[in-house]
């Protein structure tokens, strides 16, 4: 395929050029995103005359053919396999793969897989997933359609009623998408937002051309996008079990857009998840989360947790007047006065205080638990977060933050 091109590889034998092209093909089959241009580059590099030094050849091909960290990591193995083929069984594919969608039961470790994308696609994915809440996250159309219909059937079902592992995973994907959709809306708002006190001198002068150099219409520089400041505090105690994992995914989705978002989790004590959820690599985040979450699902001490939030992190997080979102079922084991006190102290420093309670979606539920009941006067909104529709309904609320 390469011989048809005029490439400066006079010194190379045809056999070698074919071998090199074969190597590029192998990489492509294994998910590298290089194209024909890269194949030509390989031949050109080889013709530079470092074939005799195997190390340099390897390094050159590596920087030429890799384009991200994942590829960088797997290159050496592929290289060895192709040029110094060994007998041992490896995971390397000789032919292009069909996107597989087999899944294992979910643990935190499985986080990246549940995103339904190959690493190589991840970059483009974000762009392609447009305003549709259920846009294609996966190249094979079936999964998408089934997810969409899954949403139709499951949109109003309570999260805790999904017992099947497959349903669980579909649910997690949907939660990811909802987060992504809301994130896009938030970012879109930041981009569209114009106006501000800075005069754009260049454009003003340009605008003055039709009026003979007199500036009639002033142009303003785009104001630096202001991010909504959010503090999310979620309950990860035993009673919240069916919901906390999904809320974590939801928070992770939002975190990737809102760099200033803070996330805390609490059961009997408060844990700062901000750094973990802002971790750029999915694997590292899952590993860290796993380490942190060892003792979770204990009892609930909402009041002391919120008090700790004020006392230990208050100076830091309440400086910029954020909106506070508490996700909890409100079943506190401590005295309600502690909770009320904490809320009273926080209230003046918060733009808004929201409470998301999964129990609110159940029929016949009323906030009668003493802690919950006493907290109500301090809330700007008290909303359910028990199914997909209720998560979608959070969007206008987040936009107001």
């Amino acid at each position: 395929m390469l011989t048809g091109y005029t490439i400066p590889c006079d010194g190379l034998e045809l056999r070698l050029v074919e071998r090199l092209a074969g190597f590029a093909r192998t990489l492509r089959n294994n998910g590298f995103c290089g194209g024909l241009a890269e194949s030509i580059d390989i031949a050109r590099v080889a013709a530079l005359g470092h074939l005799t030094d195997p190390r340099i050849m390897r390094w050159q091909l590596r920087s030429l053919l890799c384009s991200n960290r994942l590829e960088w990591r797997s290159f050496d193995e592929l290289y060895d396999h192709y040029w110094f083929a060994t007998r041992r069984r490896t995971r390397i594919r000789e032919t292009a793969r069909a996107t597989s969608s087999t899944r294992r039961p979910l643990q935190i470790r499985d986080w990246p897989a549940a995103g339904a994308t190959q690493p190589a696609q991840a970059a483009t994915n974000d762009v392609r997933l447009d305003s549709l809440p259920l846009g294609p996250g996966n190249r094979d159309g079936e999964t998408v359609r089934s997810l969409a219909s899954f949403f139709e059937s499951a949109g109003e079902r309570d999260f805790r009623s999904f017992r099947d592992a497959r349903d669980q995973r579909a649910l997690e994907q949907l939660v990811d998408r909802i987060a992504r959709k809301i994130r896009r809306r938030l970012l879109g708002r930041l981009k569209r937002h114009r106006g501000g006190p800075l005069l754009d001198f260049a454009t003003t002068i340009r605008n003055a051309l039709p009026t003979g150099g007199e500036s009639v219409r002033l142009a303003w520089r785009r104001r630096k996008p202001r991010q909504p400041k959010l503090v999310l505090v979620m309950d990860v105690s035993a009673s919240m079990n069916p919901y906390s994992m999904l809320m974590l995914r939801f928070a992770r989705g939002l975190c990737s857009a809102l760099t200033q978002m803070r996330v805390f989790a609490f059961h009997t004590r408060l844990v700062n998840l901000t750094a973990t959820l802002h971790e750029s690599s999915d694997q590292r985040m899952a590993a860290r989360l796993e380490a942190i979450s060892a003792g979770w699902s204990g009892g609930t001490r909402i009041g002391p947790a919120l008090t700790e939030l004020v006392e230990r992190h208050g100076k830091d997080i309440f400086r910029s007047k954020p909106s506070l979102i508490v996700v909890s079922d409100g079943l506190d084991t401590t005295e309600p006065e502690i909770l009320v006190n904490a809320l009273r102290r926080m209230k003046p420093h918060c733009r808004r205080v929201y409470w998301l309670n999964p129990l609110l979606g159940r029929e016949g539920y009323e906030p009668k638990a003493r802690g919950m009941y006493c907290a109500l006067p301090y809330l700007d909104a008290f909303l359910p977060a028990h199914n997909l529709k209720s998560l979608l309904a959070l969007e206008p609320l987040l936009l107001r933050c």
Partner: protein
Amino acid sequence: MQPTASPVPGNVIFMPNPVQALRAALESHGYIADGSLACTLALAEQLKRPLLLEGEAGVGKTEVAKALAAVRTCELVRLQCYEGLDVHSAVYDWNYQRQLLSIRVAEANAPRDAAPAIAEDDIFSEGYLLQRPLLRALTQAVAPVLLIDEIDRADEEFEAYLLEILSDFQVSIPELGTIKATTVPFVILTSNGTRELSDALRRRCLYHYVEFPSHEREVQIVLCRVPGIGRILAGQVVSFVQELRQIELRKKPGIAETLDWAAALLGFKTEKLANEPELVLETLSCLIKTREDRFEVTPDLVQRLVARVA
């Protein structure tokens, strides 16, 4: 050596290995590169392709560009990217104040009822053009090193625009026309991975993932950058920092931190870490930069690490 006088067997032409040469040159300017990085740099030079460097903060990505500019004895043009970076602060802008002033002066000087003696072409000429880093990099007599730092912080729109410049090496200014590059700069892009870069940009570039240096190489760096430090102390400092990097810290100490700390310890006339555990604790602020990490690195842990590296 005359190639005709001493024929080399086969069709392989003998020449001094450019990778080794570049590596030695970098080292003479105080940058200790490992072989694969030197190789990538040499390749980028040969292919005239931009080079995308990724890696954790503090592994010396920006430093590569500086050292390279020193080696090539050319200018280093640096564009620091940030959110909201636009063409007017990255490529060019018109000096509107000066243009306006010229017009007003011409109007004032012109005799009554006559057109001002200034032509439109004069107003939009190079004299009124403010060159921002990208344009400046294209118009140098000697090809400079163009460092586009932290490209992941710029917006996607700017990234697309950059792609256009990097493929054609020309800039079109509506009022002036197209400015073609007089020399093709050596482009280095760095990224910390706060945002996923577009595939198109990645494919335009050569790629290198810069790792934290090996123990041996980091010792070399310390010896090279902190003159007067003993080999023993350098070895211990590096071992300590590398142990520290294994711990889950919010901000891992980079090479710059290692150098700072080594210089600090040298300033206190330390010879061995084990001799002065107090001092290690007190100077730890060179390495640990956040409150959480400070909390994490307990005196107990420090003592254990010191014992391990001694």
